[in-house]
């Protein structure tokens, strides 16, 4: 498919891909276990949840906004689905996804009709959802024992390929299609690249914005369900790391914060890079807390490198 929107001076697919190559070679030479099939499957398991959240984040960022509530949505949907597992079995997926979508819709509504900047709406929604989650789980992890439910993540439908990876790939393919082959997807791009002009061309900007936040919430909800299946429990604040990671993966992959360029097809690169970084750092026994620091630095650098400053009149 014509990679039109990435033909910009500073962005090229070359940069992320070569960066991946460098990382793989470096980690591989330091610790050969890094390149084993088992580790590759490990990597897939570790990054699938992020892949799904990051796709949602990509759509929001494409539109020029941001969603800081994804972590809380993951938490609450993880906990809610864990709670519903005894009653609904694998049907608990629906509960988790529904909560995510609902939360996302509220984000969208307050953003559009309250005209509050997206970072603020989603920043405030975070604690609200976390609080709800804590109340629901009464502060303790909700353990999942239903094997069928756990299998949606840890099972292996296709040879040794982890199920959770199948989810990630399906979501990736589907939403890449949505971005480039549907009306909705096109509008997301145009709003991010030129909201006023889109409005003047008859695009229902408000509707698209609300839908996008719904999508982000929905996908975070799905990610939460899968994450809790993988961890075998729903715990408070389990989604927290994903806030920054999803933004980092999106931007590193090549979708600029300013919106209108890039796309979910690029996000896989960002997810792989973040995943390799984590996986590799784990194998090198780098302290998990240092990893958090490194991720923060990487995010800032990635944004600095990809931001198109000519589009920000005053950076506040």
């Amino acid at each position, binding site marked *: 498919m014509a990679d039109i929107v990435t033909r910009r001076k500073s962005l090229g697919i070359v940069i992320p891909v070569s960066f991946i190559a460098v990382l793989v070679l470096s980690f591989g030479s330091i610790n050969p276990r890094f390149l084993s099939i088992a580790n590759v499957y490990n990597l897939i398991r570790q990054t699938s949840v992020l892949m799904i959240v990051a796709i949602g984040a990509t759509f929001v960022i494409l539109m*020029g*906004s*941001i969603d*800081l509530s994804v972590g809380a949505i993951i938490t609450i949907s993880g906990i809610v689905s864990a709670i519903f597992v005894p009653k609904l079995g694998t049907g608990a997926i629906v509960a988790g996804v529904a909560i995510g979508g609902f939360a996302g819709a509220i984000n969208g509504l*307050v*953003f*559009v*009709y*309250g*005209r*509050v*900047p*997206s*970072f*603020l*709406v989603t*920043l*405030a*929604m*975070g*604690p*609200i959802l*976390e*609080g*709800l989650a*804590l*109340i629901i789980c009464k*502060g303790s992890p909700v353990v999942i024992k239903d094997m069928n439910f756990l299998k949606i993540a840890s099972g292996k439908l296709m040879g040794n390929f982890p199920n959770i990876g199948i989810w990630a790939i399906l979501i990736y393919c589907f939403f890449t299609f949505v971005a480039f082959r549907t009306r909705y997807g096109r509008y997301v791009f145009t709003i991010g690249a030129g*909201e*006023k002009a889109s409005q003047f061309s008859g695009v229902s900007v408000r509707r698209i914005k609300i839908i996008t936040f719904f999508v982000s919430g929905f996908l975070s909800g799905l990610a939460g369900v899968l994450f809790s299946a993988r961890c075998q429990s729903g715990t408070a604040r389990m989604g927290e790391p994903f806030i*920054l990671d999803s*933004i980092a993966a999106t931007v590193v992959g090549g979708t600029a*914060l300013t*919106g209108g360029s890039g796309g979910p097809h690029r996000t896989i690169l960002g997810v792989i890079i973040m995943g390799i970084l984590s996986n590799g750092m784990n194998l090198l026994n780098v*302290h*998990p*807390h*240092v*990893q*958090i*620091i*490194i*991720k*923060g*630095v990487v*995010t*800032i650098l990635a*944004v*600095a490198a990809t*931001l198109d*400053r000519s589009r*920000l009149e*005053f*950076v*506040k």
Partner: protein
Amino acid sequence: MASNLLNRIATFIRRRKIVDVLPYVMLLVLVVAFYLVKPIFLSNDNILVLLAQGMVLLLVGTASTFPILMGSIDLSVAANTTLTGIVAALFIPNIGVYAAVPAILVGLGFGFINGMVSVKFKLPSFIITLGTMSIMDGTGLLLSGGSPIWFQNEAFTWISKGTIFGSLQNIVVWSVMAYIIFSFLGSYTKFGRYLVAIGGGEKIAKLSGINVSKYRIIAFTFTGLLCGIAGVLQISRVESASPHFGAKLLMDAIAAVVIGGTPVSGGVGGIHRTFIGVLVITVLSNGLDVSLVHPYFQLIIKGVVVLSAVVFTLDRSKLALVK
């Protein structure tokens, strides 16, 4: 349409003196309500506790006001406060009370970094401070190993819990002093005025010759400094440094600033206003605690309060496109 109505309400609130009166009204309502629910709310003991609890927020809230006045935001204030506490705790065994110094320097340093990155890389402040927030969180977790650090050092504990004036805890003294100094800076120096000018009309400020970059860096550095001081006072008060301390602090700080009368869009209000906002939030938190409202529920209430406060005070004409 709904957004037009909200905009009119917000402009009305912002422009009439309502924004001056509203926080006091809120305060009165809260105090009366909590008293009715649980009379011990107004007992001497509780009031002293309330004051002490509010001091850290006073500092962090004041710190948060500088970037917000300019139309920016600093999401890393809570992480900064937490980290400086941990840094201090780590130095106490070696240098005792002087551990406050490296700690505050760390806070100031990160504030400076926020400012510099903002000016040199020209990135939106929310993403920079999101990044530094993560960096500081990680550093804090790393240094503390993920669990609270306890210490026993009379001299250091004296910083907050000592009593220079009668039975008033020192933490109140330092915090109020810092608040007064920075309020004064805000109202009586070029710095304060230029922050408002930048927030209220950056184009004009630049045209008039104001060095926006310089003041941006100064503002963020001051934020870091106050957070550093807050971190030291906090751990001195509870004699331990926890990497999870700052969870609610960010929301509280933004709420305090906005309720006090400085809207997130900036350009209006002032540092002196944050005091009443801090009081409102502290009363809210303390009252909810005393009324035995579950902390989880408090999170929700705080989020709703912040959102409402912002929705009703935001100057939407400043945001041509809400992104």
